[in-house]
């Protein structure tokens, strides 16, 4: 079998096709580190998760340290149970405070970890005890409006 010009063209075609896939993988998408490496599971209960979704980020000091894997409703206690998959490289103290934050004013919601001072670390499958629910913007605005209204009444 001898080489032909056709082989060259097919080779060229396959090469730029694969280059396009590589471009999509590296430049356009993120080969997420959390999904490929070692992980451990954590859980947390929230009164209100707001707009949190599966695959939302978990950040500590602004660095992504894990992802939300599942969100369930606990009908016994009327709270949301969020399961998280954490990067095994990072361990957190047992009194870590989990809050639901929003990136920017109307951006995506994520779970923020505020690290506590406990010397014992959270083990795989454990439940985070201290949590704070999502801030509902509408509630905040209505509270602000009510406060303003009552203040102006006092002045009169």
């Amino acid at each position, binding site marked *: 079998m001898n080489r032909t010009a056709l082989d060259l*063209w*097919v080779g060229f075609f396959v090469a730029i*096709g694969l280059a396009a*896939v590589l471009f*999509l993988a590296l430049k356009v*998408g993120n080969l*997420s580190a959390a999904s490929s490496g070692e992980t451990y599971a954590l859980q947390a209960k929230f009164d209100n998760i707001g707009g949190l979704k599966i695959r939302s980020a978990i950040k500590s000091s602004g660095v992504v340290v894990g992802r939300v894997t599942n969100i369930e409703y606990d009908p016994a206690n009327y709270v949301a149970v969020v399961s998280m998959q954490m990067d095994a490289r990072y361990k957190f103290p047992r009194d870590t405070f989990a809050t639901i934050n929003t990136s920017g004013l109307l951006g995506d919601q994520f779970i923020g970890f505020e690290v506590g001072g406990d010397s014992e670390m959270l083990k795989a499958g454990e439940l985070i005890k201290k949590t704070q629910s999502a801030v509902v913007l509408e509630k905040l605005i209505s509270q602000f409006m009510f406060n303003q209204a009552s203040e102006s009444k006092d002045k009169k």
Partner: protein
Amino acid sequence: MTKLLANLGHQVTSRLWRLGFASRFFLAIFLYSGTSFRRLQLTLREVFFSGVMSLIIIMVSGLFVGMVLGLQGYDTLQRYGSAEALGILVALSLVRELGPVVAALLFASRAGSAITAEIGLMKATEQLSAMEMMAVNPIARVVAPRFWGGVISMPLLAALFSAMGIFGGYLVGVVLIGVDEGSFWSQMQATVDFREDIVNGIIKSFVFGVIVSWVAVFEGYDAEPTAEGVSGATTRTVVTSSLAILAADFVLTALMFRGV
């Protein structure tokens, strides 16, 4: 009245007959596709004719679709003050939907119709019967290499379409309009997930490749061996595979991106 019913029944049975034959034909392609991998040159030739020859149309269309997305996306997004999200809009719509679907539609009309016409004409000029006389299986020698050539080309073409489209969106959004380059790329990278979006797009284009190639070789093989029959088969290839692509796209999208 009875004539009408008889006509309807005839229509239904002939459709069912064709569907059954097409399914059996699909299995036969797999059964006899050993040759197309043992004699790789045959398949490479088809990759050349359906893949390499579609390069120009795929790349140019991808570029223009991306540029239009850039213009339209910017027009809508800047009303809400989030023009930086243009990268996300362009990349997600191309990688998830437009890349695989439009590339497959173009592939069906560029390469699928050519395959049908070629096989149909081979049948009309009795080349396929001649092969059978020489104990050469036409499915192994003619049909399977064309089928696999299409299946191999399609994902590569769709990826190229998406990449060119994103480049087109970048050209219009960043170079022409002046959206911030850093946020264009970084927001895109933060949102587009490799496994969820890009791999699913590649799976889609692979399925579309199977559909287009299957319809094209089947219509060619099943064509009436006349000039009229071949032209009808070519038209049917484009119509059937376009409809099948869009229907399959709905099913695949519903399976892949449901509510997450």
